[in-house]
């Protein structure tokens, strides 16, 4: 690959919004270099030897945390996981107190997930190390969008000009927001499909086409991205019942027949089978790339770690960090 990690100027990775097409392409190029390596028996490198990475998760996560942990370890870094249940947050410490405490331990990078939108950006302004947003509220989940983009790019050879439908619980989805920003930036066309109750106000200001009918919205699309119905974020009733939601918005073969015959099926996981996606579709080995997404996730996170760490090579560890995505 022609792109070297140090040529990408990123201090933190807080979101996709504001990243240039060149930066996104370069991140994907670096990610590509790790895919083959991850398939070898010996997966370990020493690129991040001596570097400390803390996965600070204020929200439950299995796959994202595991993916970041593997990424850090395969690059030779020291990875520590902190879950809310094990931290002082339960004892009443504030987000910034926790940040300052960890900062005093001189980590090199924090991966932060938090249930509140904007929390990761706030935290990034208070610490000296690099910060990766592992998902904040319903705001952004940048590494998910990058791994989705990598999956699509490897299957289709490009992102430009593709028609992508993001379906389901748009309202609560940080995955949807990050994907909208990324796909728009790379010249893909984005549709969002979901019930009006799960559609954020003014979502069309993000440049997407809005549909409330799956069959209409899926017509002619190249990529179908399903979202998880995030019942844990719903305070109040957004859908009448699960069977009704599945009937109108669950992806089954009948609705999928409106998309292009070779349309890819994606899902960020974890899937609710029989809620937003039918098992037959999820397990369609010809079109479902759901497991490939997981594989790409590790490669993308390795690339993000490498890029952010390469920026810090010649920096005294006490320098004050600035906010901002790029």
């Amino acid at each position: 690959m022609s792109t070297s990690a140090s040529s990408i100027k990123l201090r933190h990775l807080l979101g996709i919004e504001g990243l240039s097409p060149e930066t996104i392409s370069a991140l994907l190029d670096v990610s590509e270099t790790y895919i083959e390596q991850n398939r070898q028996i010996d997966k370990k490198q020493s690129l991040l030897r001596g570097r400390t990475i803390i996965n600070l998760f204020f929200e439950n996560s299995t796959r994202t945390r595991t993916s970041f942990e593997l990424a850090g370890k395969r690059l030779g870094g020291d990875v520590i996981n902190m879950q809310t249940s094990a931290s002082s947050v339960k004892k009443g410490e504030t987000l910034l107190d926790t940040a300052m405490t960890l900062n005093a331990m001189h980590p090199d990078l924090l991966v932060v997930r938090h249930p509140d939108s904007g929390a990761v950006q706030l935290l990034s302004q208070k610490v000296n190390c690099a910060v990766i947003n592992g998902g904040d509220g319903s705001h952004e989940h940048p590494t998910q969008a990058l791994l989705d983009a990598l999956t699509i790019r490897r299957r289709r050879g490009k992102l430009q000009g593709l028609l992508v439908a993001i379906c389901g619980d748009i309202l609560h989805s940080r995955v949807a927001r990050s994907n909208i920003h990324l796909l728009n930036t790379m010249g893909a066309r984005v549709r969002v499909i979901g019930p009006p109750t799960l559609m954020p106000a003014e979502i069309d200001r993000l440049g997407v086409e809005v549909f409330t009918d799956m069959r209409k919205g899926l017509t002619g699309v190249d990529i179908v991205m399903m979202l998880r119905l995030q019942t844990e974020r719903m305070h109040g009733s957004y859908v009448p019942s699960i069977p009704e939601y599945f009937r109108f918005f669950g992806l089954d073969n009948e609705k999928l027949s409106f998309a292009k015959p070779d349309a890819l099926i994606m899902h960020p996981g974890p899937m609710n089978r029989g809620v937003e996606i039918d098992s037959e579709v999820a397990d369609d080995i010809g079109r479902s790339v759901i497991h490939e997404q997981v594989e790409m996730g590790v490669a993308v996170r390795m690339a993000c770690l490498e890029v952010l760490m390469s920026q810090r090579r010649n920096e005294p560890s006490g320098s004050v960090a600035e906010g901002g995505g790029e």
Partner: protein
Amino acid sequence: MSESYDLILRGGIVVTPNGREEIDVGVRAGRIVALGSLAGVAAKETLFASGLHVLPGVIDTQVHFREPGLEYKEDLESGTRGAVLGGVTGVFEMPNTKPSTLTTEDFEEKMRRAKGRAWCDYAFYIGGAAENVMELARLERLPGCSGVKVFMGASTGTLLVPDDATLDAILKNSYRRMAVHCEDEDRMNARKPMTRLPGVTAHVHPEWRDAQSALLATQRLVKLARNRGRRVHVLHVTTADEMVFLRDHKDIASVETTPQHLTLAAPECYDRLGTLAQMNPPIRDAHHRDGLWHGVREGIVDVIGSDHAPHTLEEKAKPYPDSPSGMTGVQTLVPIMLDHVNAGRLTLERFVDLTSAGAARLFNIAGKGRIALGYDADFTLVDLKTRRRIENKWIASKAGWTPYDGMTVIGWPTATIIRGHIVMRDDQLVATPQGAPIRFQETMPKEEA
């Protein structure tokens, strides 16, 4: 005897508030002083108008004349010359010049430049922006000011107001009807990468700046205006959807559409004209054009403005999307719309409503907008029967082109009369520039004691 006139228009069919009347019009000291039979009455000058229709002077409420700063595209002299050659007697000029028209000094500079060089009467908009928001109540009352113009999209630098907070502050700190370019900047920014795809042409322009971009901004504007109890003027409405929405907000929102959007349609116009058809908001497909005509028929549209926005052919020849948006229009507004009158798409009375009375009503223009005693003697004389070909060589604009080059129309302006001065007759300029500032009820100069 005292019953002498400076000018009498004899034998024309005059469109007055009563309808069409075959009467003579007597003019003295720039005003209309007699309507009726003036047989045997003397006048310094007589214009025989038999076979012609005498309309209240056409007022184009949206032109960009580029001065100061971009005089290679247009200036106040060439722009107003095109206006009178096209039968237009008054123009409202837009603030996106260099510098933008944002301060008293910027405004007075334009007034100074127009004096003695403008062929028709004129008013200038003041730009509404974050930097002058606290001054707007005073600025919009400067004599010669047609009000505040805000760009929610399609502009750059200090003139762009993409956010609701600044827009609301502008609404709060001004009083007169505010003219707004409604396109949602956020949505357009998000969609802009599609214009950089390989092989892209101007055909993608209405897809990038799509109907939803226009509707979103219009809805945001109307919502804020209603909260503030303010009247707003939605410039160049281009979508069927906005017409449906604005129909339910006519108590506070007035509506402009343009001859281009009523005449051209995608994809044909982009096939034929390429980037020459590129303007903001874009020319859309026939469905939206039909929606605009519906708005004209049903009375939702208040005025026709040309959005005359000249760029040189050299600039327009740049590959899309580097080509600038905008086309000429002030000189072709009357012939194009008269052709639509002849095709039965609107009546001559509706044309007068859209091009003269409507502007006077919306903007409280003093002494213009109808043929009635005491009003300014501004007339657009038209021959509804003549068949003419619009050609680039007829265009006075420095840009030197029109999207209608080669088009044959029925109906043509044959004379332009401004406050009693005949300035154009049979496509010839027959006077010197005598334009004066348009007066508004909100900007009437106070008599010094």
